[in-house]
């Protein structure tokens, strides 16, 4: 009852104070910065213990009614809060000092600590680096900003997922991406398309075991903690509106295909294909008639529009942040777009004695994503393939000048561009998503120094996938029995509901006595997730209404396909029976853990954590796992011998710990029942139902274990004018999830089991230097970060030295990197006969290709070096910010070039202009084999393995801030306009559009990430 009473009393007192006793007097004053004495607009001035307060105006002035003896609390973000006791005077001018410690907060998701006392290797990104970017995905904007964090975006589809690797790849078959936590809620790391980057306050990347061990079985690949914006206690209403408009474009590419003249002459020269018998006059006639650049037909500039409105305010005990977002981005090819709406409401509140705090973070998002089909595949509806295989001597227009989307109407190769256009224009491939992320938290200091806390979080995703082939489209018209049946077309929908619950209870003791500073917390955490999927596939649609069920042809419709008047017994003459599916998967983890932190004399810090996790994945084998860490740090700058040194910060850190990876097959819901023996029903003998053993459970299965050692230094010189950190680490993954050979008497040859070891060692560096700093003049700060990571397979199953795969990068060898190409070396073209040449295993040249001649190339699909650099500058109202990112020592197979240089495809499709260098007679020295030589691109050679390293001007923003012009405006307090370019320039040896990928081993006409130009405006009221 005590709490309730206090609450009531507080409320009562507030009324009493406000209404019974009018303020005695009015005081005024000016708030300035201590550094340069300039006025500070927007600072919060509150009467302590009340909800009364206001903000300073543009001249830093305030006026407030007070009683004698009141205390004014003056605060501003980034400044130290000051308190002034009201006496006899009526003017109180306050100078606020910079608070460098404020940004130095470390959020681990469970605990929040002062950076001075931390022992962990973490990197924190502030809102400015991610929030106004015209990129639909939060993950993609982090590229190049955190040393050791590799973001690979493999597609330019708006909202596309990125693959995220922290400190190298730590698993062969398991999950390799870090855990993402938004406002305390663990969320799907592959789905950010629906989330609004404007809502982000900061991002903290937890790299070493001291922080990630807190996440136990989910922390093996590090943790990325995202915090969204909240209101600030005791500030007035602030309204911000931000809008951007712009276009995205395809980047330049390093190859070209032939035009009509070149193609027809080439065909004649090699004596095969269309026009091979043509005379010059005939070639000219055909080529003049049509010389289509199919890129012009399939690609377009994609428009981007965004609007974002946010409102924040706070009283002394309550604050809110509300935002509303709209984002629309068209891809650079037809039928590719993303549209989304976002709502967010973040609320924080506390009791007046500061003992009880609570908050809610709710975000509701809806997105609609239209996709191209068969991205990155050889299917002829892939719009990034079609322009390069489509023949240039066909016209894209009908006789009346309209776009031809039918061609011959057949699904033949010549008709490829028309079929692809037909598919784009008539058919649908769309996903609609509702995503809700919400959390509620509360904590209460119920005994002095002892705080109990509770948090409940939810990540809810509902996705509706829509796939429709119009019965009149080229593909749709052959959907049922190859076009034989009366009704055609396909309408398929899939529904996915993914709900992830998270519940955290904690108890914390924190105290400071003398030079001792200690806190100790214990937690229990409950995680449970449900994936429900269902869907249907209907073939046979009424062409009038094919989008809805009303147009579905009933399943009992008899189609007399063989014309015998009888229904076939095998059901083939009932082709319209729809296919349906329904499934549910559940996974869960229950954990308890404790963290102890101790600091002595602000110099020596120690932290230790132990976590016990029980995973439903290992219910029948190793249910409970123990993960732990110990770490320490030494604030050297606080030692007396450092007095008077230029270092304002110098800290040595070391940590060691063990984390786990329970997602042994990668997916969040994968291997949910791998410890169980299972049966399945299927087609049995003679069209009956049969029961089959479908899985042999592994009763010894467990998580993959990562043991990480980290040593680091943080430093700051000359009042943090120059600051940075250096880290070195070793990460060892044991118990890798791989195949164990078993006797065929089990009805299988392998069982998935925990075997083998992988090691990542590396170093990271971050530097920041404030070159010029003048609040009203020229400011320039430089920043750079970089990392080195070496990956090595250190142990393979059953003690073997080498496991050879049949693909380009799936062979494994002890001492080699994961993802290293194992290939036959290409030796060029034999000048004598134009045949391809290879090196055999001993380095001798041979015309015979054999997989036995494969060698290790020391080229991997994962990079060794990664990083970014740039500068932030401002002069008066102007700002110019750049951010470069780079990735080096990374390779990929360029399958796109392989296709357009394939000599066996020249009669069928268009070819690279490089084929104009084809070997023609003995003695020719060239890199292109003779016409009619065998195809090389699908052989395991290094001919198309290319260096995919790149340096990219990832982001550049030129802005102007109208603060000077607006200083007397009472309505608008800020206007900023900015011109922004994303991916403006890329330097790379890669011969495709885009050297960046999702760390795939091969490119095949993939959707490149685009250049985006936007003009934006930012208004504050």
């Amino acid at each position, binding site marked *: 009852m005590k709490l309730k009473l206090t609450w009531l009393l507080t409320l009562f007192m507030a009324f009493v104070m406000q209404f019974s006793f009018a303020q005695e007097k009015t005081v005024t004053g000016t708030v300035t910065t201590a550094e340069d004495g300039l006025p500070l607009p927007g600072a919060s001035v509150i009467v302590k213990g009340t909800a009364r307060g206001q903000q300073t105006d543009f001249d830093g002035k305030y006026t407030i009614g007070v009683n004698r003896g009141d205390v004014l609390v003056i605060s501003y973000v980034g400044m130290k809060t000051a308190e002034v006791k009201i006496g006899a005077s009526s003017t109180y001018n306050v100078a606020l000092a910079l608070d460098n410690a404020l940004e130095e907060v470390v959020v681990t998701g469970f605990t929040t600590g002062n950076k001075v006392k931390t022992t962990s290797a973490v990197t924190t990104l502030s809102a400015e680096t991610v929030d106004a970017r015209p990129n639909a995905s939060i993950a993609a904007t982090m590229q190049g900003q955190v040393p050791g964090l590799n973001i690979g975006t493999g597609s330019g589809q708006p909202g596309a997922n990125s693959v995220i690797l922290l400190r190298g790849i730590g698993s062969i078959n398991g999950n390799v991406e870090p855990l993402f936590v938004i406002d305390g809620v663990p969320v799907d790391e592959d789905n950010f398309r629906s989330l609004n980057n404007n809502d982000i306050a900061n991002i903290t990347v937890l790299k070493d075991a001291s922080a990630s061990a807190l996440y136990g079985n989910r922390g093996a690949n590090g943790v990325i903690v995202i915090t969204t914006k909240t209101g600030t206690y005791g500030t007035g209403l602030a309204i911000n509106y931000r809008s951007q408009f712009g276009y995205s474009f395809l980047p330049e590419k390093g190859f070209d295909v032939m035009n009509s003249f070149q193609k027809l002459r080439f065909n004649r020269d090699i004596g095969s294909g269309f026009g091979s018998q043509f005379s010059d006059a005939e070639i000219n006639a055909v080529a003049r008639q049509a010389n289509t650049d199919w890129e012009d037909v399939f690609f377009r500039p994609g428009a981007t529009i965004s609007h974002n409105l946010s409102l924040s305010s706070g009283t002394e005990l309550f604050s809110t942040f509300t935002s509303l977002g709209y984002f629309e981005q068209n891809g650079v090819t037809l039928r590719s777009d993303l549209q989304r709406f976002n709502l967010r409401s973040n609320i924080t509140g506390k009791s007046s004695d500061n003992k009880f705090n609570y908050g809610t973070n709710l975000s509701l998002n809806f997105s609609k994503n239209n996709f191209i089909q068969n991205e990155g595949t050889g299917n002829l509806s892939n719009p990034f393939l079609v322009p390069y295989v489509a023949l240039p001597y066909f016209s894209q227009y009908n006789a009346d000048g309209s776009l031809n989307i039918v061609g011959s109407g057949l699904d033949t190769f010549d008709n490829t561009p028309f079929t692809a256009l037909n598919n784009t224009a008539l058919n649908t491939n769309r996903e609609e998503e509702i995503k809700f992320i919400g959390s509620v938290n509360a904590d209460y200091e119920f005994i002095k120094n002892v705080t109990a806390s509770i948090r409940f979080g939810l990540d809810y995703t509902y996705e509706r996938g829509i796939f429709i082939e119009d019965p009149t489209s080229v593909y749709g018209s052959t959907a049922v029995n190859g076009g034989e049946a009366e009704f055609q077309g396909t309408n398929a929908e899939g529904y996915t509901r993914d709900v992830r619950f998270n519940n955290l209870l904690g108890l914390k003791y924190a105290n400071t006595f003398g030079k001792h500073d200690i806190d100790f917390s214990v937690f229990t955490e409950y995680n449970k997730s449900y994936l429900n999927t269902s869907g249907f596939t209907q073939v046979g649609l009424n062409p009038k209404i094919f989008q809805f069920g009303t147009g579905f042809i009933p399943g009992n419709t008899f189609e007399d396909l063989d014309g015998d008047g009888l229904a076939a017994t095998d059901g083939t003459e009932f082709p319209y029976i729809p296919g349906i599916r329904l499934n549910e998967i559940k996974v869960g983890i229950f954990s308890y853990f404790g963290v102890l932190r101790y600091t002595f004399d602000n110099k020596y810090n120690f932290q230790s954590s132990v976590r016990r996790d029980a995973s439903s994945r290992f219910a029948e084998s190793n249910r409970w796992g123990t993960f732990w860490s110990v770490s320490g740090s030494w604030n050297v700058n606080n030692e007396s011998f450092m007095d008077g040194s230029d270092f304002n910060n110098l800290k040595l850190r070391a940590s060691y710990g063990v984390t786990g990876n329970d997602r042994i097959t990668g997916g969040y819901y994968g291997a949910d*029942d791998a410890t169980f023996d299972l049966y399945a029903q299927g087609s049995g003998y003679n069209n009956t139902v*049969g029961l089959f053993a479908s899985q042999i459970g592994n009763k010894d299965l467990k998580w993959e274990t990562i043991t990480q050692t980290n040593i680091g230094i943080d430093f700051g010189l000359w009042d943090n004018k120059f600051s940075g950190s250096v880290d070195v680490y070793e990460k060892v993954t044991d118990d890798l999830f791989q195949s164990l*050979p078993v006797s065929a008497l089990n*009805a299988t*040859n392998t069982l998935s089991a925990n075997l083998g070891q992988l090691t990542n060692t590396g170093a990271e560096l971050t530097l920041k230097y404030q070159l010029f700093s003048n609040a009203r003049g020229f400011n320039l700060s430089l920043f750079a970060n970089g990392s080195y990571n070496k990956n090595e397979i250190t142990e393979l199953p059953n003690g073997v030295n080498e496991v050879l795969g049949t693909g380009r990068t799936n062979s494994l060898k002890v001492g080699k990197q994961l993802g290293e190409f194992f290939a036959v070396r290409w030796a060029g073209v034999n000048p004598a006969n134009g045949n391809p040449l290879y090196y055999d295993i001993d380095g001798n040249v041979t015309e015979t290709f054999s997989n036995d001649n494969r060698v290790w190339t020391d080229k991997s699909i994962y990079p060794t070096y990664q990083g970014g650099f740039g500068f932030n500058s401002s002069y008066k109202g102007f700002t110019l910010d750049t951010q470069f990112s780079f990735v080096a020592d990374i390779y990929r197979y360029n399958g796109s070039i392989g296709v357009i240089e394939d000599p066996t495809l020249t009669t069928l499709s268009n070819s690279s202009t490089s084929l104009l260098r084809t070997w023609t007679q003995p003695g020719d020295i060239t890199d292109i084999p003779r016409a009619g030589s065998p195809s090389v691109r699908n052989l395991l050679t290094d001919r198309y393995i290319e260096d995919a390293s790149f340096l990219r001007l990832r982001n550049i923003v030129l802005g102007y801030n109208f603060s000077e012009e607006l200083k007397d405006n009472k309505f608008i307090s800020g206007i900023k306009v900015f011109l922004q370019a994303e991916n403006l320039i890329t330097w790379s040896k890669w011969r495709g559009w885009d050297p960046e990928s999702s760390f795939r081993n091969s490119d095949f006409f993939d959707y490149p990430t685009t250049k985006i130009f936007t003009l934006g405006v930012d208004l504050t009221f």
Partner: protein
Amino acid sequence: MKINNKFIVLMFVSLLFACNDAIEINPEDEFTPDITFESVSDLQQGLSGVYAQYDFENDITFNSIFADNTKPGVDNGGQLINLYNWVLQAGEGNSTAIWNSYYAMINAANRVIEASALVDVSDEERATFDNILGQLYALRAVAHYHLHTYYTTDYLDDSALSSIIAERVPIVTEVFPRNTNEAMYAFINQDLDTAQSLLAPETSDKGFIGQDFVTGLRARIALLRNDASGISFANDLIAKYDLANPTQYVNMYLDSNDTEVIFKLYRNSAVGGIWYFTNSAGPFMEASNGLYNVLNEASDVRLNVNINFGTNNGGPSVPEDNLHLINKYPGSSAPFVSNIKAMRVSEMYLIKAELQVKVQNDLEGAALTLKSIRDARTGTSTALVTYANPTLALADVMNERRMELAFEGQRYLDIKRNKALLGGITRNAIDCASGGSCELGASDYRFTLPIPQVEINAFPGITQNPGYSN
């Protein structure tokens, strides 16, 4: 302080509730062992699963390609060429498939047999239950029989190594040494005894195993062991089943006549796909000139049954151009989709004849037995042959067997069984013109299959057959 207590209590309650709920997740959407086999009808479905894993296509492939009844076809783009060229090592796919699929079938049978012990059976269900169990034991026996024929070096040496006896569902990491022939024969016979005691006295559907199949399998095993009892087993079935006349014989391969069928395997996928691209009916393997010459010389109903002279399925064959299209699985419901005739009474005649030569030295009896088949195939009375010596008699039995059982998964094993007396594989010169060797000598190690690499990976200590390096 009351609210404090409530807060704490609430926390503990949710803690306890939470714990088991998150980690006790059973795969409710899957068939776990405890709910899979609960009734006799579940066992019936399990049995259906075992039959479905009887991949006799692997036998048909190996026996036709590795011996002398096929040659590379006009549309061959490398399909089965290595097998045709007798490239055989531990990692070879077709021989590995034989090992894997029969052990998978045995594993499936063992699972249902073990589960059957836990099923409550009412009196009305008893007969059905027994018949299911009988079929399971017979299926387990026939799978072991097939494995034994490929993996033992010598059928007649009881102490030679056979394959592995799998009498139960193993613990997954268990590995097993090979068993001796003696143990293997004993195990198969014991399963057949069990099957015989459980199976229904009569079966109406020849797609399912009955008593006659067990008898036929006993005859096959007796043949491997030169055991005279095979003659009486064969005689039992000869007395019961008529040989098909020429019309019935043609219809049998069109799936419309079962006169001489003892057991057939239902199929709804294209068996003919072993030799054909079934979409285009392009043959990548064809019947050999060697086989064609033998069939052409006999010139009875078997020529047209084995070689396609119709216009369907890419036909007709053109013998003068050495184009011989295999016609044993022409398809009934769809092209190339035919049931597999897994045991026919004519095989019993051939077993009887072979044993009459080898065990009884009854050359005249053997000639009479063969005459029965020839009379049936020609539809007329053929001349009785007189043999000068047992070798010639055996060669004639083998010649008849080659025609009668071509493309039915027997040829390689027949040569293996009699190689000591008749020699190894000799291909017609035209058949091996495309490359590779024409002769595989009687002493060649490749008449015994290698223990597959996948098994060696699991159990490096297993005994490999002679001639193969691991």
